[in-house]
């Protein structure tokens, strides 16, 4: 640590606790309470990175979240390294390791810096113009651009840290713990509002915290002493929740805000362990008070980007708060009074101020007079026309401004310095206000955008509302807060305030130089490396909209979203184009205010918590029996059960054959189940299904097809009448939730007169399906006292029964075309019943089969799967299921649409069967079907929806939708594939057992 850069009488950070850290591999020391930036400056390290385009050396420029240059890579653990962090916001801890970004091979010797010498070749939109053509060269360009531009390294392994989300509800949220935020929070808490005060720093107080200047006093003490007393009273309020290290990321409508709290980033490695790193607060506030302060503006002049050029207010914070001198011979350059505060602070701490260059004519405010008294030299009506020094500034060149400020006059003087403070006035932080949808107004007098209209219950107070002087800040904040909260807090009424008042204002967006514009480098956006010249070029090339200029020049599009650069870009555009800034408008500030880590965004929703996994009550059996699983919606369904070293194809062939030859068993628990009760249940089903339900006998089942109001097939399933007014509806696995919502919608909104109650019971029951010619024998072993004869228990009927005292609902229904039963059991007994069925079926070689075999078996029978063979454009007529449409019913959902001019078109795509000429050739699902292969362009007539090799038919079968397919039965068609064309014939959709003999076998 260069000792001579620290002042020792500092009382804000703990200068007794030394901390070691590494920057670019070198071990350095700082103090507890330092930021990485203040510690680097104390070590006389200014150069921390290279600029994006020209690779110019860049140094620390600010002390906060607006930092454009000091962007570092934190840590080097492959799972926890973090790019693009701002050194000005990183609190120093023992063992911290950081490195420069955007320089290769090192910050001091940078290959990309040749760009700087070729910079006339790198104008605005250089990347767009040069690297866009020819398009296939982009691959090459990208490699070099990425390598040399290097926006940090992403972690290569999963993040090991823990992140968290929490909700927070409050009456009043105060954003910003500076002087106005503290007064507002205290007022709110005192008046019994449940109040939350957040600030992104580790300590409250804002810039007033270290303000010890004779020109700013409250009740005869320095403003910081007065504020310290105020802060100390805050913990008296139990209803005031203070969150430091918490930065507001986003402000959405209805006062919904997201804030990120840093919990462990400032701790050393041992203390961090097993703790939540960051928490994202989801805040809903009844009222919001924004007190986010203002950002100091830079000045735009030739070579204004050298390391050592720092915002004047930041130099003040470094000396007053951190006790760090940014230089030994500091010059200051300003257009307003605030640089004088810095000059006085430096001077009081024994740092030499070379001179103050002020673009204004001589002015006599309190603070200027104070500075003059201290003997600080002031160059009135002057500007810096150039700076020198490659890796750090070493001198500046000063000239007098002409009367109109557009040119420089007289002779040039050179001044040696090792640091230049710049102050271009203040920009209210209106980012959150605009994020929330608020509209801005422009104040010409000092060129600021201020909060204007908002639809939300919120106010902005303090300097984010355009009050920059202590007495205004206090007076206006108090009045606004009282009015906003409808209270009358007169604690602050009788304060005696001394505040220097700025008398003269002057602003020049782009300061003139003795060199012509094309020969200068006045940087606007330091992070994206765009200059005032780039903006002017864009305007010359015809860009008018601020949003277009921004994208073309990339001004304001870096990770700092142009917090420093936007106002000057607007100013230069307005000036060049001859329009008023207020009319030009501003660009949109989007959340997050500062970048959020992905960890904070996803919180705990990682790994198995990323999405819900639904498992059937029989799931463990499938796992034990080595099933492969497929995801169906959120469900894990057994897909197939490979034996020995079987692949999926072989397993499915074996399972399919076994199910038809003897017996198969399927876990059908995922099917949606809706319990329907009420005196109008039958009428309700009549209205939602295409077929008639009133005459369904108790104890019988019926297949139903549900349409959308547009006539297209939506879902299907079997519904059983359990008693007079009680039905159990099944839906497809994926459609369950949507079907319930749709039915509820109709019941609540269209037919509230119906007495019907719907309850989802999908998870309440497990379903075991046994099918095949031996299924009857197996069931009779399980339920010996149940008469399974076709007469007593025919296909499409239901019985209540007991399996070893476990109550079951047994439905004789079939999705495979085989003699088949579905046993519904209370979930907790499902696995046990499944095991009993399996045990009872062993002598018949009962074979567990998964969804793939189920799909194959139903395809052999031509049964559709809603969602696979239908896609929201198929009517029942298109599916050749005319039989299911009741002719007698007056109305049902979708009925009227079935004879719209479009739905009765004969050449609609219709479901057909397909057989390949070569029975061993299996079509690809999704493959296109054409009638001709010679004439181009070839008309696509349809596509394959389901395709399998059927082991029971010993040939390949497929379902497809084909234009006018119904009439094309027997026709030859072609399925062109990448390397060949497959010949197919259109057939009926039912391939196996057209007479349904097996159902009653």
């Amino acid at each position, binding site marked *: 640590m260069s000792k001579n850069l620290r002042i020792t009488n500092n009382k804000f950070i703990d200068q007794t606790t030394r901390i070691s850290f590494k920057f670019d591999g070198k071990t350095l020391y700082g103090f507890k309470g330092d930021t990485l930036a203040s510690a680097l400056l104390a070590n006389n390290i200014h150069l921390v990175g290279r600029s994006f385009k020209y690779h110019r050396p860049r140094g620390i420029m600010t002390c906060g979240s607006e930092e454009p240059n000091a962007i570092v890579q934190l840590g080097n653990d492959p799972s926890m390294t973090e790019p693009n962090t701002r050194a000005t916001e990183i609190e120093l801890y023992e063992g911290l390791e950081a490195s420069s970004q955007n320089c290769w091979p090192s910050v001091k010797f940078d290959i990309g810096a040749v760009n700087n010498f070729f910079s006339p070749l790198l104008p605005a939109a250089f990347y767009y113009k040069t690297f866009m053509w020819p398009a296939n060269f982009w691959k090459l360009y990208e490699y070099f651009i990425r390598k040399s531009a290097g926006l940090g390294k992403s972690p290569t392994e999963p993040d090991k840290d823990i992140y968290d989300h929490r909700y927070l509800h409050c009456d009043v949220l105060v954003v910003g713990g500076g002087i106005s935020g503290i007064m507002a929070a205290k007022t709110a808490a005192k008046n019994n509002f449940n109040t939350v005060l957040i600030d992104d720093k580790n300590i409250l107080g804002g810039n007033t915290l270290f303000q010890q200047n004779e020109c700013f006093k409250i009740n005869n003490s320095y403003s910081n002493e007065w504020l310290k007393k105020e802060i100390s009273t805050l913990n008296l309020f139990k209803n005031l929740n203070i969150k430091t290290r918490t930065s507001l990321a986003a402000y959405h409508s209805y006062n919904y805000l997201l804030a990120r709290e840093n919990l462990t980033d400032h701790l050393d490695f041992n203390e961090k362990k097993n703790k939540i790193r960051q928490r994202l607060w989801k805040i809903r506030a009844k009222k919001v008070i924004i007190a986010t302060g203002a950002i100091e503006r830079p000045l735009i002049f030739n070579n204004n980007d050298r390391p050592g050029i720092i915002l004047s207010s930041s130099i003040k914070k470094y000396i007053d708060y951190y006790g760090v001198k940014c230089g030994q011979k500091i010059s200051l350059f300003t257009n307003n009074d605030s640089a004088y505060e810095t000059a006085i602070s430096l001077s009081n701490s024994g740092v030499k101020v070379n001179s103050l260059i002020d673009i204004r004519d001589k002015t006599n405010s309190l603070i200027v007079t104070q500075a003059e008294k201290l003997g600080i030299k002031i160059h009135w009506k002057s500007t810096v026309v150039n700076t020198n020094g490659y890796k750090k500034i070493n001198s500046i060149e000063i000239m007098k401004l002409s009367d109109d400020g557009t040119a420089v006059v007289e002779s040039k003087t050179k001044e040696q310095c090792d640091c230049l403070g710049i102050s271009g006035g203040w920009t209210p932080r209106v980012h959150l206000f605009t994020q929330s949808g608020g509209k801005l107004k422009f104040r010409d007098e000092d060129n600021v955008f201020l909060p204007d209209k908002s639809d939300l219950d919120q106010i902005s107070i303090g300097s984010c509302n355009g009050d920059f002087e202590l007495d205004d800040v206090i007076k206006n904040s108090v009045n606004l807060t009282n009015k906003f909260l409808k209270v009358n807090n007169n604690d602050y009424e009788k304060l005696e305030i001394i505040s220097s008042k700025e008398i003269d204002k002057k602003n020049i967006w782009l300061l003139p130089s003795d060199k012509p514009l094309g020969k200068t480098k006045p940087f606007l956006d330091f992070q994206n490396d765009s200059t005032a010249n780039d903006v002017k070029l864009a305007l010359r090339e015809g860009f008018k909209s601020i949003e277009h200029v921004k994208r073309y020049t990339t001004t304001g599009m870096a990770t700092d979203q142009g917090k420093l650069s936007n106002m000057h870009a607007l100013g230069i555009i307005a000036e060049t184009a001859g329009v008023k800034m207020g009319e030009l408008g501003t660009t949109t500030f989007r959340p997050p205010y500062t970048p959020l880590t992905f960890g904070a965004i996803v919180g705990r929703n990682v790994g198995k918590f990323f999405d819900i996994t639904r498992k059937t009550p029989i799931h463990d059996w499938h796992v034990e029996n080595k099933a492969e699983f497929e995801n169906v919606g959120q469900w894990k369904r057994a897909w197939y059960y490979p034996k020995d070293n079987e692949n999926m194809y072989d397993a499915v062939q074996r399972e399919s054959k076994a199910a038809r030859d003897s017996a198969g068993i399927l876990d059908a628990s995922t099917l949606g189940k809706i319990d329907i009760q009420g005196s109008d249940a039958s009428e309700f089903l009549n209205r939602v299904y295409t077929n008639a339900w009133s005459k369904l006998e108790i104890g019988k089942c019926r297949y139903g097809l549900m349409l959308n109001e547009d006539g297209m097939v939506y879902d299907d399933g079997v519904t059983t009448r359990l008693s007079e007014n009680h039905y159990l509806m099944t839906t497809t696995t994926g459609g369950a939730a949507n079907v319930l919502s749709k039915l509820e919608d109709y019941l609540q909104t269209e037919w509230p007169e119906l007495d019907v109650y719907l309850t989802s019971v999908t998870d309440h029951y497990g379903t075991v399906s046994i099918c095949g010619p031996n299924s009857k024998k197996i069931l009779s072993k399980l339920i010996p006292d149940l008469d399974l004869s076709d007469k007593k228990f025919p296909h499409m009927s239901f019985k209540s029964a007991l399996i070893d005292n476990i109550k079951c609902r047994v439905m004789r229904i079939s999705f495979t075309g085989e003699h088949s039963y579905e046993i519904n059991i209370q979930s907790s007994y499902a696995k046990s019943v499944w095991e009993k069925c399996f045990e009872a079926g062993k002598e018949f070689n009962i074979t567990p089969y998964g969804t793939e075999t189920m799909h194959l078996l139903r395809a052999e029978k031509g049964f559709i799967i809603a969602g696979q063979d239908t896609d929201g454009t198929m009517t029942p007529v298109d599916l050749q299921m005319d039989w299911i449409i009741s002719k007698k019913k007056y*109305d049902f959902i979708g009925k009227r649409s079935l004879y719209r001019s479009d739905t009765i078109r004969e050449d609609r795509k219709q479901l057909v069967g397909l057989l390949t000429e070569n029975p061993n050739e299996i079509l690809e699902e999704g493959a296109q079907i054409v009638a001709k292969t010679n004439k181009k362009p070839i008309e696509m007539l349809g596509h394959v929806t389901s395709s399998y090799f059927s082991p029971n038919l010993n040939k390949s079968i497929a379902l497809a939708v084909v234009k006018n397919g119904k009439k094309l039965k027997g026709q030859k068609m072609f399925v062109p594939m990448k390397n060949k064309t497959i010949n197919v014939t259109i057939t009926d959709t039912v391939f196996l057992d057209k007479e349904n003999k097996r159902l009653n076998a």
Partner: protein
Amino acid sequence: MFLINCPYCGERDQSEFSAGGEAHIIRPKQPTELSDDQWAEYLFMRKNIKGVQFERWNHAHGCRKWFNMVRDTSNDKIHAVYKMGEKPPIK
């Protein structure tokens, strides 16, 4: 994110709700007697107003009730919520 005052549950986060399109479109009692054009009018035609709009909402992750909302689409201000079957409190 809106804060929606469900007429049955009170104020809840928007994430608990799903939107259901334009409100006060009554399903025709006798669809079979409508011409294609009349049926299409019911089936397809929806307003998409910049300004005050009447909408259907469902408290999907709550009481599951459908209700109506008057919302200004230009600023997302919710002027009123009311139960199904009730007349809009605002014209």
